[in-house]
């Protein structure tokens, strides 16, 4: 048992934080919201050059050949800056799925030229669809890989404008199938868990950043002649949110390990991660908004960029209550009806 990340992982995280601090400030997130694709192709390329985009792809296919335990800290970093790029869709979910089922379709993914997203029936509005070059889509129990020109998109507006949800239509054909039957079922279940887990990691980063913003503001904003951060009502609200976050992180890290090792309890571990992280981000968002007062309630202030991603990801891929139910179904016996 060694529940601590090694120096390589910490160094990689620090390097990614450096890059994102420079390249993905709130103004950059706003620019992505206003763009066609919903993200910056240039920043995606920079992430690819660092190895982040292809992290989960085998070295033979141009990636780093790492697993979820190598990705989890970088997803937290993505959350800290509300990264608009499709790190969840491509790196956490799409790439490992293609690696297992259709490695020949991985061309250009690690280099950042081919953006991948995965649409599962569980969540009919596919995230990152507008900017994707290759879409893996579940349809009638099979998985299909379809290139962007062969799909029709009907945009669905998300509270997080960077998500670019869309309903996707395409013509299923024998040539588009990459998995069917049991193989497809298992791949869909795994992709779902990867989505839920990766969202959890991003949610932890979002919560961390929102608490940081709130603490900074509480030090600087004065009322009644003192910094508002000296009021206990403010302190205790932020402290409670920090406790929630601190206990969410190890649960999310354990889920990363369980996915990487194909643990038989993977689903329970992922559900715990999503339940804790969704609640931690929700609590951090509420605390941060309250501490900011009216300024936090404006479009102009940056807080909403983070809150909205937190709300979107908290609801996507099963919210906290849904995931607690999934744990309960595994841990408690069902009642006779």
């Amino acid at each position, binding site marked *: *048992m*060694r*529940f*601590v*990340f*090694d120096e390589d*992982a910490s160094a990689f995280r620090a390097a990614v934080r450096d890059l994102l601090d420079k390249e993905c400030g709130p103004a950059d997130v706003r620019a992505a919201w206003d763009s066609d694709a919903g993200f910056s192709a240039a920043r995606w390329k920079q992430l690819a050059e660092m190895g982040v985009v292809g992290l989960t792809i085998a070295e033979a296919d141009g990636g780093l050949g790492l697993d979820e*335990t190598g990705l989890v800290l970088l997803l937290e970093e993505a959350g800290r800056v509300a990264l608009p790029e499709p790190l969840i869709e491509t790196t956490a979910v799409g790439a490992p799925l293609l690696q297992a089922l259709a490695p020949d379709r991985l061309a250009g993914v690690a280099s950042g030229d081919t953006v991948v997203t995965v649409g599962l029936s569980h969540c009919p509005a596919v995230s990152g669809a507008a900017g994707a070059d290759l879409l893996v889509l579940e349809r009638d129990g099979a998985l299909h890989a379809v290139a962007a020109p062969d799909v029709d998109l009907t945009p669905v507006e998300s509270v997080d404008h960077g998500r670019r949800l869309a309903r996707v239509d395409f013509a299923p054909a024998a040539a588009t199938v990459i998995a069917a039957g049991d193989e497809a079922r298992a791949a869909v279940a795994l992709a779902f868990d990867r989505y839920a887990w990766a969202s959890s990691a991003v949610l932890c980063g979002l919560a961390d950043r929102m*608490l940081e913003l709130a*603490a900074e503001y*509480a*030090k600087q904003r004065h009322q009644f002649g*003192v*910094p508002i*951060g*000296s*009021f*206990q009502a*403010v*302190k*205790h609200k*932020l*402290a*409670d949110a*920090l*406790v929630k976050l*601190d*206990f*969410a*992180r*190890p*649960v999310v*890290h*354990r889920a990363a*390990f*369980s996915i990487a*090792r194909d643990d038989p309890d993977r689903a329970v571990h992922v559900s*715990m991660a999503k*339940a*804790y992280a969704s609640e931690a981000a929700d609590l951090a968002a509420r605390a941060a908004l309250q501490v900011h007062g009216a300024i936090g309630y404006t479009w102009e202030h940056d807080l909403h960029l983070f809150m909205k991603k937190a709300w979107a990801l908290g609801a996507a891929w099963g919210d906290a*209550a849904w995931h*607690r*139910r999934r*744990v*309960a179904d595994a*841990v*408690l*016996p069902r*009642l006779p009806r």
Partner: protein
Amino acid sequence: MALDLTFTEDEEAFRAEARVWLEANVPAQPLASFDTREGFEQHRAWERTLHDAGWAVVSWPVEYGGRGVNLVEWLIFEEEYYRAGAPGRVGQNGLFLLGPTLMDFGTPDQKARFLPRMARADDIWCQGWSEPDAGSDLAGIRSRAQLDGDHYMLSGQKTWCSRGAFADWMFGLFRTDPAAERHRGLTMILVPLDLPGVTVRPIAQLDGETGFAEVFLEDVRVPVDQRLGEEHKGWNVAMATAGFERGVSLRSPGRFMATAARLIDQWRERPDETLRDDVVAGWMDAEAYRLHNYATVSRLMAGGTIGAESSVNKIFWSEMDLHLQSTALRLLGQDAEVDGNRWLDGFLFALSGPIYAGTNEVQRNVIAERVLGLPRSAG
């Protein structure tokens, strides 16, 4: 070495050894409450049994009665201990709080003198920090220790000393420099409770048993070599102790995992659909607490330290315990009020969790000020 959440063969073997011994040796009938004289001595006898088999303080060095295992193995032992339904640790304030502090701050003589006897339960220790006017504001301590040649003369009053009614020794915080401001001028002193001038008055707790005590000191003479750490530096020593208490040692996950497992059993016996989410949330919290503790000890083993984060831990375990116990009582429905049910004692004890070891309000202040960097407030 990369993240690895599987137990090694050695760790699994250690777990198996502990499990086998505990299954064979844990008393079949629960002991009487250690808050009674009879129960206290039964628990002391159990501590001896544990010690003689090498299980009293597994993470301590062998020379002091331990087996020198690492902190991961200590967590494993704790899981097995509570899983086996073994008795509560009557010596806990000594074993888990004073013990680690002695190892950090004690002289070689003090370690050799106190640790092996503590491990064997020859001496059972209580903690004498709180005073009638020094609770959350611990730096307001007024009990005096005056240097008089090679002795300190102690006078004053300590209160809320857990298991103080029957304990042998007390580790107390005393004011050595009355001119110094607040937390400067305090000193940690080790006091045998059978000395002339010491009066121990038991106090009945919420459950009616004498779980804690007041300790009155009138001109009690204690040799200088029973001072722990430097004179006037007792606050630093106490904060190290409190760090152990809140952070890792006092409430290991095994205890709450066992409670969560019992809660699930209770659910199976009397399922109530409206409480399903509360039951599973409690079980998940115990799991999350376990993971958090493995992460903390892994960090410590890799050379890290534990600071104000220990306050985060303290809030979590105390609120979790209350949630687990009160959810179980709600599952009992109207039997919840019936004395002697399986949960009432645990619930009553859990109610004190947010108060002792520094109240949760004070912990929230610590988190806000030391982790989030918010300015200190007046109160």
